[in-house]
């Protein structure tokens, strides 16, 4: 049986890699990501660019802290959990509204793969992983035995 600590370490590494890989293309191309945010037709126009500039750095900082900072791990896990729940709801609502767009998750190319219920399932799994990582990070340091 795989020890719980290893499973949680695996979850943490996966989440950190996902967030780092998601952040980099958005930071490189803020205009492209702003377009992706706009295409969801949800954010008020005045907040589209702000979101496109700020959110990728939130993803990058949270991803790095989840991986490398023991002190900030609970907070970064909380932010990642919140973001994952938000993304899951966002994609679900967008699908429900019949809006057919590319995700803007790992690529800002509007011709990239379109969102679908598979993306909702992926996000739900990542949310669940983030939930367990957050719970583990909340435990007192002495008893947590969190890897690294």
């Amino acid at each position: 049986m795989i020890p719980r600590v290893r499973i949680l370490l695996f979850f943490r590494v996966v989440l950190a890699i996902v967030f780092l890989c998601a952040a980099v293309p958005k930071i490189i191309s803020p205009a492209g990501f702003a377009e992706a945010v706009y295409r969801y037709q949800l954010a008020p126009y005045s907040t589209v660019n702000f979101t496109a500039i700020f959110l990728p750095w939130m993803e990058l900082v949270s991803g790095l802290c989840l991986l490398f900072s023991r002190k900030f791990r609970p907070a970064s896990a909380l932010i990642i959990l919140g973001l994952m729940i938000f993304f899951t709801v966002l994609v679900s609502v967008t699908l429900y509204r019949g809006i057919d767009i590319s995700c803007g998750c790992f690529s800002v190319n509007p011709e990239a793969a379109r969102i679908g219920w598979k993306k909702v399932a992926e996000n739900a799994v990542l949310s669940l992983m983030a939930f367990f990582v957050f719970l583990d990070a909340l435990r007192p340091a002495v008893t947590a035995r969190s890897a690294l």
Partner: protein
Amino acid sequence: MPSREHIQDLLLHALLLAALSALLSVIAWAVHPARIPWVGDWAHHVETLALREGIPLVNTPEMRRIAAAGTHLILDARPLADFDAGHIPGAVPLPYDNLDAHYEQARLLMSPEMPVVAYCSGGSCDDSFLLCLHLRKQGFTNVILYAEGWTAWEASP
């Protein structure tokens, strides 16, 4: 159960991470070679893109004249369910979210020089703009965009 102090620390750390992210985003914005303004003009984004691509635009009164005259083929780029719920008189459905399934049927009605006008819901919907781009790539030279779309059509007297 985490103590009150523990939760306070957690929230403080989350705020610190948000502040650090904000600081980094401001620094990155200041030095980014392709930076965007903090507030963009997205209200007319589809129209801006269309003009940049050289696609002519029509407003609602012009669209009403076109529909009444029957001089253009009117294409509805919205999902089929929306078309069925209501559309501009004489419009033909060509849903951009399922283009492959409907394109060949719609193409039978078109010739390369025929004036074509496309619309979708309006607002931030860009399916009609993307359809215009697609049609131009297919060799249709007289493609027009009704960017205000169904919402404006329905609202106008």
